[in-house]
């Protein structure tokens, strides 16, 4: 026996000089460095694409595009998708997907409107009820995914249909008009309140912001903080990366998942509120494409559909990229189909980059 261990000793002796785990590794090519930088900071790609597209359209269109008015208009146009995409990011970070986001947003807005106008509930309370309803639907999603162990795609596909149908049944597809809201319950349009910076004497041009835009930025900043600097955020990443490993290393995976879907529901309800501000009215038919548009923003933003990697800033940039392309191409006079085509290209490119970044692991 002892003669055998001697062999191993020799190997040990030979390796004594080296540390047990040597973390320094020579990084050879520039490409490697880029790959590493992206790995550490996945929001870089969409940021570069965003800046690149703004500059390109700026050069092509001049001040028509490169004006405070047009640039802030993009923010206004992406605010709803941006807010919803923030919620979608959370869910996708846990390796899930939420197809019910748009439906949750719309039903929340309908609840806010109908409680105020049909039942005469004070508008503050109606808004709170709407927000609660969105959160509750999200929590049900989370419970089905975390506790019942059903696939997120199926759960939210079902929830999407359920919520949408409930929305139409409940609202009887009645639109509550902007003018009624304005006179009776202006709080519903609160997130649509605009303010301008640098407008001319007639109040034209200049940078135009709405509270909804500010809210979108706040949601993104808040989530970026929560994901990066709180234990909850780390648990969200760990759960998405490898739920089993997370569970074994002491993360309460079920609670994390339910909280993620719940928070996503709440954010979507806020998006529903912002939607009222944006379109003025409460319309049960709006927001039909929000799930696809939010997933698009998330994917272009570099968040991996396999979970556990990517950042919320990326999503924000992703949403803006779509906005920039839409308005830029529109101002260029291009057919709207070109926008969809280019966005399709961006989606596939984004996923390809994601796969490439993942190879660092190998």
């Amino acid at each position, binding site marked *: 026996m002892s003669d055998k261990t001697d062999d191993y000793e020799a190997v040990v002796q030979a*390796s004594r000089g080296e540390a047990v785990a040597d*973390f320094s590794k020579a990084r050879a090519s520039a490409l490697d460095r880029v790959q590493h930088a992206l790995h550490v900071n996945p929001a870089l790609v969409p940021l570069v694409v965003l800046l690149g597209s703004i500059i390109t359209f700026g050069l092509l269109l001049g001040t028509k595009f490169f004006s405070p008015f047009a640039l802030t208009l993009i923010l206004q146009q992406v605010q709803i998708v941006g807010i919803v995409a923030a919620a979608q990011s959370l869910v996708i970070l846990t390796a899930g997907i939420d197809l019910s986001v748009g439906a949750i947003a719309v039903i929340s807005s309908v609840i806010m409107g109908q409680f105020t106008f049909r039942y005469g509930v004070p508008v503050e309370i109606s808004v709170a009820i709407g927000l609660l309803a969105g959160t509750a639907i999200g929590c049900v999603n989370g419970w089905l995914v975390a506790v019942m162990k059903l696939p997120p795609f199926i759960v939210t596909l079902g929830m999407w249909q359920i919520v949408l149908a409930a929305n139409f049944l409940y609202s009887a597809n009645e639109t509550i008009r902007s003018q009624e809201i304005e006179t009776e319950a202006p709080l519903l349009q609160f997130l649509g309140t605009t303010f301008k910076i640098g407008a001319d004497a007639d109040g034209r041009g200049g940078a135009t912001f709405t509270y909804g835009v500010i809210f979108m930025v706040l949601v993104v900043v808040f989530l970026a903080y929560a994901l990066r600097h709180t*234990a909850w955020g*780390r648990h969200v990443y760990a759960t998405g990366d*490898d739920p089993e490993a997370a569970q074994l290393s*002491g*993360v309460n995976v079920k609670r994390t998942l339910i909280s993620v879907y719940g928070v996503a529901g709440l954010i979507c309800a806020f998006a529903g509120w912002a939607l009222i501000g944006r379109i003025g009215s409460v319309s049960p038919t709006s927001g039909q494409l929000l799930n696809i548009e939010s997933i698009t923003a998330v994917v272009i933003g570099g968040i991996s559909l396999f979970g556990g990697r990517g950042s919320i800033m990326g999503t924000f940039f992703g949403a803006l990229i779509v906005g920039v392309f839409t308005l830029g191409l529109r101002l260029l006079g291009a057919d709207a189909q070109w926008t969809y085509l280019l966005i399709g290209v961006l989606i596939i490119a984004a996923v390809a980059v994601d796969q490439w970044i993942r190879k660092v692991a190998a």
Partner: protein
Amino acid sequence: MEPILKARGLVKRYGKVTALDNCDFDLNPGEIVAVIGDNGAGKSSLIKVLSGAVIPDAGHVLLEGRKVRFSSPNDARAEGIETVYQTLAMSPALSIADNMFMGRELRKPGVMGSVFRQLDRARMEKIARDKLSELGLMTIQNINQAVETLSGGQRQGVAVARAAAFGSKVIILDEPTAALGVKESRRVLELILDVRSRGIPIILISHNMPHVFEVADRIHVHRLGKRLCVIDPKDYTMSDAVAFMTGAKEAPAA
């Protein structure tokens, strides 16, 4: 010497299959006990009971003479029994520091921690770096490096360091060298000895006889759901151990 971890009369059945059949187990302070056994002998059921992943149908576990009941790995962890799973249970995309503190993150003191729930990254990184250094995993360039950028041996090192870092009483290592090459296995074995020298007893599950014979103080041979015998590696050869395991040879009286 009173064993630090002791199991008596463990029974675990899965339907008609009896995985643990009145099984006993002892781990003394400061020693490495290897658990060996043929596939299907019930090794992993035993380990799962000790680490809290499985609740036994009968029998009990004593930690430092105290009866303990685990209903989840977290319970066992709270009692100071850390397990390094074969899969390592790490999140590849997260950093070394994040992984080491997963599930027991430190928050900043004051308002930032209590209200804003902000993590104390600086402190976690420092502790992580210190723990890795203590175990000779010194040359860390970047504690914020993602775990997936590490080699298999390095990951194993981080996982063992994580287990050893939090005042644990017992560390269970499940096949720590199974996925590693010769050189990396060496480093991990060294690390195991290093951990023991710091007074933490280790339960080592392994199929690799040379590794077992090299580091174990005693070897628990598991067969047909129970402890067949405990042997001292200095008194027997590897082929003896294999013969006991497979039943080819009569076991010595325990």
